[in-house]
């Protein structure tokens, strides 16, 4: 994989398995959005403009419940705050890229693209084209998110409502996390973050995610020293 094109297609390939979980999720989003009273254009536009699955889910539900705009904005902001951690995590690896590259990669920095791209950066080889891998993974996710939204919007209502398709999100994340638990500190970080997320699940705006992530990171650091 000595060239940009090769890395790009490896990135697309690396993202493909994730799409098995993402596509149903995008379809449910489309269905939910129309059910909450958004137009087809608004539902699709949010997938482009916001491009963040769980925030989009929350926003259409709040919209359907007639929530004031300010509360929706705050909620969307806080749910997506975890992406600041991703931003910090990829920053050292893309430091030397042009502002245009940084802008594009920041736009594509979702849970699923980040999780795949960061594994490429963790590999020790000195390829100068790892950002192409990131781009490939991010664009593969972006494209399938847009298409699955459209499918949900246009075919949605015919889907059996009893199918627990939203569960694919948790399964996708399990598939990403479990293989990454290679040493004691990361196991400690994962279990403590999971436990804290439950303990403080009552916090508004999904702030439990932020609290849990910070505790998990601290526990991980602390257990490194033992």
């Amino acid at each position, binding site marked *: 994989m000595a060239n940009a094109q090769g890395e790009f297609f490896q990135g697309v390939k690396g993202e493909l*398995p994730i799409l*098995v979980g993402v596509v149903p999720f995008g379809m449910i989003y489309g269905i939910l959005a129309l059910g909450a009273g*958004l137009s087809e254009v608004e539902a699709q*536009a949010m997938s482009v*403009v916001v*491009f*963040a699955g769980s925030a989009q889910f929350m*926003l259409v539900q709040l919209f359907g419940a007639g929530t004031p*705009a300010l509360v*929706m*904005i705050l909620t*969307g*902001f806080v749910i*997506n705050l975890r992406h600041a*951690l*991703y*931003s*910090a*995590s990829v*920053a*050292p690896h*893309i*430091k030397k890229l042009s502002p245009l590259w*940084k802008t594009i990669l920041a736009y594509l920095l979702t*849970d699923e693209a*980040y999780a795949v791209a960061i594994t490429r950066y963790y590999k020790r080889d000195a390829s100068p084209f790892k950002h192409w891998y990131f781009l490939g993974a991010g664009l593969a996710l972006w494209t399938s998110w847009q298409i699955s939204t459209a499918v949900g919007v246009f075919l949605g209502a015919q889907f059996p409502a*009893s199918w*627990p398709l939203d*569960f*694919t*999100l*948790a*399964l*996708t*994340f399990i*598939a*990403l*996390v*479990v*293989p*990454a*638990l290679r040493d004691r500190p*990361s196991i400690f970080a*994962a279990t403590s*973050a*999971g*436990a*804290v*997320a*439950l303990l403080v699940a009552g916090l508004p705006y999904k702030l*439990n*995610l932020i609290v*849990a*992530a*910070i*505790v*998990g*990171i601290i526990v*991980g*650091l602390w257990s490194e020293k033992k």
Partner: protein
Amino acid sequence: MNSFWPTMIIVGILTFGIRLSFIIILDRWQPPKLIERALRFVPVAVLSAIIAPELILRSGTADFTFENLRLIAGIVAIIVAWKTKNIIWTIVAGMGILLALQYLL
């Protein structure tokens, strides 16, 4: 019903700003070694914090009983992920178990 567009666009801009934040900040500022070590735990900590409530909470309260089908399916998925390290098998196994249990019970 009022327009959704302004809300959507503001959330979009904020989200992009969050994603760009540290990419810009860390350009100019060299973080201490401790922060660099901490970043390694970001993926597992954040994703685990999303997973645990999805599996264990049912309408806001923790449910560790066998009636919580998502927990059972999730545990199976964790085992499959551990053994196979394969994303598709993990999703198929977890979803298959959940659908089967829903259908049978």
